[in-house]
Each structure stands twice: as structure tokens, then as C-alpha cells.
């Protein structure tokens, strides 16, 4: 019985599709670690998120081969309310993740715990989730009227409120401007520090991954093409041919070396 969220040889095919979208993927998500996933479009990143969070095939059907397990229990065996408390899932568009049933950010974040019939004295604990993502000052605002970045924070907090051990995020910053991206990235850092959750982060923005990921996987046509520690993978020269842009630090270092300029650890530090 292994700890952690483990995919072993997982292959997934959507209902009605002729070919599998994911092929024999091995992945391990541990508490307190951030695993980044990059890859070109149509490489199966979103599908991977659905499989890891247990929504595929549980909610959307399709066929899964191999095993997807949490502490040894297959995710397939769990019902979605229980899954939601183990593994939270976040999408790109903050607007579609709102319940549209709540008038304030506080109630939106409390949506999950209320669904689980927790009494009000326990629901009040969601202040913790609001604090962790940095939303306390906005708790009384109407969730529909927030900016893109703030909306994603609300979605993040509302998933956090269920205290999942793992978080799966499918390109959470792709529709955000740089300010919003910064908000979300900082919130993720706080989450890792303060909750010890294991995070699977799919991102196009390799700069974000350079900052917070411990490990990075490169997905290509549904298989894992590269994997390893973040710094190593993000500096790998094969990234470009796999359709992924390396982070700014890596690109600067290469450009500097190509022009014969000095490159040192301090410079790397300053660039971030």
C-alpha cells in the first residue's frame, strides 16, 4: 500500500473516441510536492487532470486501463463527494466554476462544506481558505463581479475549503493577465507551505513552473516524454522540439552563453 496519488501505466480513451488520449502514463503525486506538467496542445494535459482527479471515467465515462490509486485505493471506487475531499480540481475559466447560487465570496467558498452538510460552526472555518489565498478583504463581494485573477482565487479557495490532500490545476493562469497570474502563483506557494497539499500543475507558462515546481513532466501525444527535477527538465534542450518554451531564465542563460557573456549564479538568482 503506497502513500500518495499514483498513476501506474494509465491509459484513457474518451467514450466514442477511436484512439486513447493517454498512453501508459506513470505519475506520482506526494504531499507537499508540486509536480508540473507541460506539453504542446492536444498532448493530453487536460485529460491527465481529469484522470488524476478521478472525474474520468467516473463522471464523464470513457475507458481507463492501468491503475489510478490513492493510498492504494482505486479512485474508481470512490463517489465524487468523497473524491472532492481527497483531490480538488481547478479549470482555466473562473466564471464557469462559480456556483451562481451565492451572493458573497464567503458563501461561494463555503459552498463545498455546506454541500457536505457540515454545521455552521464548522463552515465558519472557511476563513482559513480565504486567508491562504489572500481573499479575506474580498469576502463580502459578489463573486460574479471580480476580476479574472480574483475569480480564480475564489475557485481555488472554494476547492481548498474541502481540505483536499491533493490539488490538480489545469492551466489556471492561462486566461489571466500578469497581475492575475502573480496572484494565483503566490497563492499556490502559500498553499504548499501552509497545507502540505500535493499539487499537480499543468501550465504553459514555464516561468511559473520554474518558480514553484519540484518536478516536471513533459507530455507528448499522451505519453510522458521527459520527467525529472524541475531545473533539469526545464533546461533540457529537447523542450523546444517538443513544442514547449523554456522559462525566461533558461533562455537568457543560453543567449548569454551564445554571445560569450559571463553567466553566474547571482545573475540567475536576480532573473528569478
Amino acid at each position, binding site marked *: 500500500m503506497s502513500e500518495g496519488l499514483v498513476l501506474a501505466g494509465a491509459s484513457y480513451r474518451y*467514450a*466514442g473516441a*477511436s484512439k486513447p488520449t493517454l498512453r501508459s502514463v506513470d505519475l506520482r503525486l506526494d504531499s507537499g510536492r508540486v509536480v508540473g506538467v507541460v506539453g504542446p496542445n492536444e498532448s493530453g494535459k487536460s485529460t491527465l487532470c481529469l484522470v488524476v482527479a478521478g472525474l474520468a471515467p467516473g*463522471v464523464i*465515462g470513457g*475507458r*481507463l486501463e492501468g491503475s489510478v490509486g490513492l493510498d492504494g485505493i482505486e479512485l474508481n471506487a470512490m463517489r465524487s463527494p468523497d473524491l472532492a475531499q481527497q483531490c480538488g480540481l481547478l479549470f482555466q475559466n473562473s466564471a464557469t466554476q462559480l456556483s451562481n447560487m451565492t451572493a458573497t465570496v464567503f458563501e461561494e467558498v463555503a459552498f463545498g462544506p455546506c454541500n457536505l452538510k457540515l454545521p455552521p460552526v464548522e463552515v465558519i472555518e472557511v476563513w482559513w481558505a480565504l486567508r491562504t489565498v489572500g481573499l479575506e478583504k474580498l469576502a463580502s463581494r459578489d463573486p460574479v463581479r471580480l476580476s479574472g485573477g480574483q475569480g480564480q482565487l475564489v475557485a481555488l479557495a472554494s476547492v481548498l475549503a474541502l481540505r483536499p490532500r491533493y490539488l490538480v490545476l489545469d492551466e489556471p493562469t492561462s486566461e489571466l493577465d500578469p497581475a492575475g497570474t502573480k496572484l494565483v502563483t503566490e497563492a499556490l506557494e502559500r498553499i504548499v507551505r501552509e497545507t502540505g497539499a500535493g499539487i499537480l500543475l499543468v501550465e504553459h507558462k514555464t516561468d511559473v513552473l520554474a518558480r514553484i515546481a519540484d518536478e516536471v513532466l513533459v507530455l507528448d501525444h499522451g505519453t510522458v516524454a521527459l520527467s525529472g527535477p524541475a531545473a533539469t527538465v526545464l533546461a533540457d534542450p529537447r523542450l523546444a522540439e517538443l513544442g514547449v518554451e523554456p522559462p525566461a531564465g533558461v533562455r537568457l542563460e543560453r543567449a548569454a552563453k551564445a554571445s560569450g557573456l559571463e553567466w553566474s549564479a547571482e545573475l540567475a538568482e536576480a532573473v528569478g
Partner: protein
Amino acid sequence: MDLLQRWVARQFTTRVIVMMPVAIAINIVLGYTVQSVLKLPIYVDSIGTILVGCVAGPLPGAITGILSNLIWQYAPGIGAGSSIGPFAVTAGVIGFMAGIWGYLGVFRSRPASGLRLIVPAAIAIAIIVLLAARMYTIPQYSDPGMGYPSWVNVAIIGIGAAASISVALFVYLRRDAGGAWVAVAGAVTGIVAAIVSAPIAAVVYGGVTGAGTDVIVAALRQGGADVYNASLGQGLLSDPIDKTITSFVVFLILAGASSRFLARFPLGDRLVRVEASDANDAGATDGN
């Protein structure tokens, strides 16, 4: 009783619950936009209702229709001064019927060619012509004592001809025999809707509802028809066209949607031809 409970529960999966508000919004926004821009005697406010009905079932369809009308009536900005609320009954009936058509698989795409295309089209046109002919002969339209002006007969012939031609064209151009059944379903739904609406319009509003259709009501009254017959006459002219157009739009939407999207709905299996390999796929618990 348990069977009934399960039948009800099967129609209200999470996906259906999510779809209903979207459909309600489509009804209201498209209906309001079309009516305020075009001011034609058609409503186009049932696309969402029929869509939900044929993918989810009669009950979700009916509730979508009823809620659309009630929310529209009480919606700030667009509801004030409208007369749509009391017609929630009609909307419920339309949604319920759409569910029945869904069960019968009427909205399934049936690509075909040659004889398998022509025969359904011919049958559909025959049914439409029969319906028009039956309408032609109801006392309201044929008895001068009841007071309908003669242009009504011309209108019916015109509508019947236009409908037949449109159905034929649609089926031919899209090579889809399904269009024939959709047309019949739309026409029948329209006639039922008109029959249900007439007493509501007559009793609640005295026949005048403020929509573009009042022109027809006025013209019929000019000919001497009383309040109820004028409403019924107007309804029988507008509703079948409106519901047939709406049904075609829904049919086109379903044809354009991926089978992946449709398969997860309660009536999805009647909308999509299931491939052999999918039959082995893990059944999903849809949050029931």
C-alpha cells in the same frame, strides 16, 4: 411508486441540472431579442425548452419551459409589461412533448440517400398536407357565420405549401431523413401549443398579448371572430410555424454537437448511434 421515483431521478442528472439554467437563459435572451428586433408573429422562445426535453426527458423539458416563462415575467428590465407569465402552462406542455419526441428518437440524425431519403420526406409532407387540410375545414375557418375572413384559407394553403417545400429542401440538402420526422413533431407540437394557449390568451388577456401576433388577432376580429376564436385562429397560424422552425434549429444543434457531449445525457442513446466499442466502456455514475 418506486418505478416512478426512479424514472424521475433518471431524468435529473447533474448534467441536466446544469443544462437547464443555460437553456432557460437561451429561451429568454433569444426570445426577447427576436421579438424586439423582428416583431414577427413568431416567438422563438422555446429552443432551450425543446432542447432539454429531447436530451433529458419530459419532466426536465416541462420544468425548463415553465421556469423560463416565470423568470422572464419577473426578470428586471425585460419582464415588465410582458404577458408571458401565464403561458407557462403552454411552455410546460411543449417541454413535455419534446421529451416524448426524445424518447421516440425523433431528433436522431438519419443520414440516408435515395429511396430511404425520399420515402420519409414524402410521408412527412403528406402528414403536413393532411394537417393543413384538416385545419382548413374546422368550423372557425370555413363557416362564414363564425366570421373568419377568406384570406385565412389562403394563408393556410400558403403555409402548408411553404412548409412542405422547406421540409423537402431540408431533407434533400442535408441528406438527412431525420428532418422529416422533426418537421412533423414540430407541427404537431405547434398545434397542441395553439390549442392550449388560446383559452389562456382569451381568458387572461382578452386575446391581446402585446406581441407581434396582435395584428393577426385584430384582423381576425375584424372579420367577426369572437375573442376565443380569434386567439385560436392566430395561434394555429403562428405556433406550428414557430415550433417547426424551433425544432429544426434544435435538430441542427444536436447534429452539430459531438457524440461525446450527447452520450452523457439521459436520452443520449436515442440521439446518437452507439458504436459497438462504446458498449464496453465503463458506465459512469452521473451524480445520482
